[in-house]
């Protein structure tokens, strides 16, 4: 494509920048209605227990309390992929923090006081925090009714067990191939639960008006899915719900699906006409919402004499926590991506979710890929070292290339993406192979890791968009991909401007959806919005411009296909017409008018995606697309304290087409830093005596600050066009954090010889390793 773009690919300032910098942008908590009631949730203090009795009477009598409800009042289930959770715990509680009852009162203080008047009696059950134990045959069942739960077709729960999903890959004949292997290398790795830590905690306001219509203002990633799940949960029609989604202060996956909305809605149904507001405290956010799943990993690889991997066993045992309504799909995603970006002919893969009594696991930027790449990318280095092959060369040898087959036997083509280019560019930018100078008593080296990820979504997940042209020849662009910080509003504006042939400043990006007025979007997850919603916007803009051309063709008396629209001017040969003269219909000199207000519509659904075979995982196309990437990290290890300094990070992703270079860089830097947090400091610690989270605040749950930033970061992008992507684009939102932890661990190994196989790579672990090797200073 030689066409010169005017908006797409051009460095563009965020369209929401001014609103955010000035404070004009409204978030849920900024919305104030008169007469608001304040909600608080009564939560389980037991990790696993039968509920013997719930006494709400005293709380109900407290002056100012307007509603006190529990599971008996709303015995409804929720769950996106696997419906396993009551809105309020019913017969039993399964984690500390689980909602048991809720209160709405005229002030927050009264609501808090009312919570103290609620009495719940429990009969303790044995809690389990270890998924490996939970898999055993005689393990006590956390969900005895698992066999009765509804799950979507791609999920395979094991009845009468603690396993809500088991995904299998059976490719080739691994047993035979292992026998032929020159070397067999087997290792175990571990990933703890971590928190999303959005700057804005979960918040929602619900109002049931006197006619019964329910409006919800929610800090969410997926307003339409919230509407769908609420309607299911309360057994109502979609028309009974209206979801309004203001700006979101960070999602990272924890605001996908529904969270606190059902409770807020239930309270509002008991307080007709009154808005009910529920804003979580940071402490509640830390352990009562959702977290990233923990994972226990085993990888066994067989390599031939040349260093080619010929067989592999990958076992991922996921700690789903107490519920797995969303987590089961992470188990699936890890399943079809089981061996990362490598071409391995014989694979036995098992990705198994297990219920425990920990906080609930769910979607987290990377959706399982960050977790499995922690293991895969270290395993690759461990094999390379064993074989005496350079880590970069080893990856180039084994990675997916055109003609390779993935774990599900999908054939990679030259359009899928160019991992070799990603590896080479990354290695070049970090100065791979050049010795880095370390300070006195310190060690320093570079590590590399790859990443691949596909959007994990139902095969029928769809996006819609509307483009309305206006009197000035500009456009309103409507879609429901959520602006969660990733810059979707800007990207959608650019795509619309490019397709319409107008400049960005004429585009009104209407990015904050209202399900009563906005076009449909499945969810803002899976790095799918630029790709899927971008296509819908492009199609809608194209539809609008086709209508423009049809009218202009009549005016010019030519064929529509011979007309172009550039810079807001409709052109046919030397004849021109300003766009605004057609947008609302074209009026001839005598006054008669043809056409009228132009509204373009568009939608997009990825084509030909096929569910994986439940026995073998086989699918010629399990997902819409893949994004490949590589990242290298230059790390200095303090020989006295084990502390790490991240000097430099370079990354390269093949994202098909960079829509907004500024946005792509932003995603790269943000992902690196979040990956670094997961890599060196983050872990949610549960006390196995009480089930309590030990670090439910920032005192002891650490995320990187500005002072912990890498000293330098560089990002580059390869553009192997995605044939069905908008202007060739595919997603990059999550991929940027996937390789970071493994790249850091690999660098630490090259620098010191210390191999850390359990996240995070803390100074304490590194120092212990140094001592074991006698290398501490």
């Amino acid at each position, binding site marked *: 494509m030689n066409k010169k773009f005017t908006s797409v690919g051009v460095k563009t300032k965020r369209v929401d920048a001014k609103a955010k910098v000035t404070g004009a942008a409204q978030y849920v908590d900024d919305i104030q209605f008169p007469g608001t009631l304040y909600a608080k949730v009564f939560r389980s203090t037991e990790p696993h227990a039968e509920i013997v009795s719930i006494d709400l009477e005293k709380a109900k009598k407290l002056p100012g309390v307007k509603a006190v409800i529990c599971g008996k009042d709303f015995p409804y289930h929720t769950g996106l992929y696997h419906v396993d959770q009551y809105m309020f715990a019913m017969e039993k509680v399964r984690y500390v923090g689980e909602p048991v009852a809720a209160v709405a009162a005229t*002030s927050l*203080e009264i609501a808090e006081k009312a919570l103290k008047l609620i009495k719940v009696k429990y009969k303790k059950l044995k809690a389990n925090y270890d998924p490996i134990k939970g898999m055993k045959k005689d393990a006590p069942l956390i969900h005895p009714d698992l066999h009765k739960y509804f799950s979507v077709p791609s999920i395979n729960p094991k009845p009468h067990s603690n396993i809500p999903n088991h995904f299998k890959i059976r490719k080739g004949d691994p047993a035979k191939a292992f026998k032929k292997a020159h070397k067999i290398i087997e290792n175990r790795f571990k990933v703890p639960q971590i928190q999303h830590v959005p700057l804005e905690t979960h918040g929602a306001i619900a109002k049931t008006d006197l006619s019964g219509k329910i409006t919800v203002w929610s800090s969410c990633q997926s307003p339409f899915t919230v509407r769908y799940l609420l309607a299911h949960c309360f057994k109502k029609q979609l028309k009974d719900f209206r979801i309004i989604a203001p700006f979101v202060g960070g999602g990272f996956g924890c605001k996908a699906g529904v969270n606190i909305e059902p409770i807020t809605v239930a309270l509002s149904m008991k307080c007709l006409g009154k808005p009910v507001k529920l804003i979580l405290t940071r402490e509640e956010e830390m352990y009562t919402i959702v977290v990233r799943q923990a994972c226990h990993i085993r990888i066994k690889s067989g390599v031939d004499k040349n260093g080619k991997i010929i067989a592999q066993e990958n076992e991922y045992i996921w700690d789903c926590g107490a519920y797995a309504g969303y987590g089961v799909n992470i188990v699936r995603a890890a399943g079809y991506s089981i061996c990362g970006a490598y071409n391995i002919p014989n694979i036995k893969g098992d990705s198994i979710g297990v219920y425990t009594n920990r906080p609930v696991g769910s979607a987290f930027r990377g959706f399982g890929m960050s977790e499995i790449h922690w293991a895969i990318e270290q395993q690759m280095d461990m094999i390379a070292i064993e074989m005496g092959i350079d880590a970069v060369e080893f990856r180039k040898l084994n990675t997916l290339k055109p003609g390779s087959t993935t774990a599900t036997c999908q054939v990679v083509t030259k359009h899928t993406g160019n991992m070799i280019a990603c590896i080479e560019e990354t290695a070049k930018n970090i100065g791979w192979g050049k010795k880095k100078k370390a300070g006195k008593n310190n060690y320093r080296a570079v590590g590399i890791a790859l990443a691949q990820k596909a959007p994990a979504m139902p095969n029928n997940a769809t996006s819609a968009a509307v483009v309305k042209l206006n009197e000035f020849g500009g456009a309103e662009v409507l879609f429901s991909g959520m602006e969660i910080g990733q810059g979707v509003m800007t990207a959608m504006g650019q795509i619309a401007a490019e397709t319409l042939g107008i400049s960005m400043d004429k585009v009104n990006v209407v990015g904050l959806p209202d399900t009563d007025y906005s076009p449909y979007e499945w969810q803002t997850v899976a790095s799918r919005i630029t790709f899927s919603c971008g296509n819908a916007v492009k199609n809608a803009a194209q539809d609008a411009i086709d209508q423009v051309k049809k009218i202009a063709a009549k005016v010019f008396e030519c064929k529509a296909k011979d007309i172009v629209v550039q810079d807001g001017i409709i052109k046919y040969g030397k004849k021109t017409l300003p766009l605004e003269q057609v947008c609302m219909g074209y009026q001839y000199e005598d006054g008669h008018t043809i056409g009228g207000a132009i509204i373009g519509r568009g939608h997009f659904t990825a084509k030909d995606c096929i569910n994986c075979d439940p026995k073998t995982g086989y699918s010629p196309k399990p997902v819409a697309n893949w994004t490949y990437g590589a990242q290298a990290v230059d790390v200095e290890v303090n020989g006295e304290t084990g502390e790490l300094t991240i000097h430099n990070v370079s990354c390269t992703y093949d994202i098909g087409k960079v829509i907004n270079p500024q946005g792509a860089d932003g995603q790269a830097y943000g992902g690196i830093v979040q990956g670094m947090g997961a890599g060196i400091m983050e872990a949610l610690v549960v006390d196995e005596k009480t089930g309590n989270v030990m670090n439910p605040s920032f005192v*002891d749950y650490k995320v990187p*600050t500005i002072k912990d930033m890498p000293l330098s970061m560089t990002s580059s992008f390869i553009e192997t066009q995605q044939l069905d992507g908008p202007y060739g684009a595919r997603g990059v939102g999550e991929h940027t954090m996937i390789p970071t932890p493994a790249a850091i661990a690999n660098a630490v190994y090259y620098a010191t010889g210390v191999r850390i196989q359990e996240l995070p790579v803390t100074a*304490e672990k590194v120092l212990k390793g140094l*001592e074991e090797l006698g290398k501490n200073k």
Partner: protein
Amino acid sequence: MPTLNYLCPTTSSELKKILKKKKTDSFILAGGTDLLVKIRHNVVKPKEIIDIKKIKKFNEIKLTKTQLNIGCAATLNEIAENKTIKEKFPAIADGSLSIGSTQIRNRGTLVGNLCNSSPVADTVPGLLIYDAKIKILSPTGTKTVSIHDFITGVGKNILKKNEIVESVILPLPKNTKSAFLKNARRKALDLSSVNVAVGLFNKSKKNPDIRIAVGACAPITKRAQKAEKFLKKNGLTDETIKKAAKMLPISPISDLRGSKEFRNKIAHRLFIKLATQLGEV
């Protein structure tokens, strides 16, 4: 609804009157960076708050010929940036600078850090090596006690309910060098896993007047007298420093910030590093 009485005296005499009537559920407020956190977590439930920041002289950092006076409302950033403190008491300046973030240091005070009496307090090791004196104000007048007698346990000190710390007095030292180091899980906004202050109060390598305090490793941070005496007698060499490290009065616990083994190791390393550095120059 609980009500809170907020008092904000502007003179010492006004404060004294308030202190006379002060009850146990009345709390002194300086920067509030400890107090407000405790209120939020229901650790304390004040009925009355006495804000001491509006008393002008409490905000002063004052130098005389023999001593430096740090008022109880002087902020950590003012202390970290104060020229005299940076020159004469670097371990205190650096300890102050290591606390929290710019925002926290703009509100938090050194005296608040001291009165909160946490074992991890980052200004305490510095105060210990300089033998700080604590000026205590009560309705009946003032008295001065030694820093070494001030903290009596985790979160505990000798203050009675109607006493406050008016200022910290630092005798001006001669021929000193000092330094402070902190180990934490991240590079800012974190509590110490270990903190160490070391000072050298004469120029003799043979009989060094060295002073050492290691924090976050015991319920009460104290001077490492045994190590100090040993070094004074045996001189400052790589070998003696290593031996002295084994004499530090530390008994760390294991918690989320680090295991006791890790804390022990880090305490040794940081001490060795500081003592070696001070001995070199």
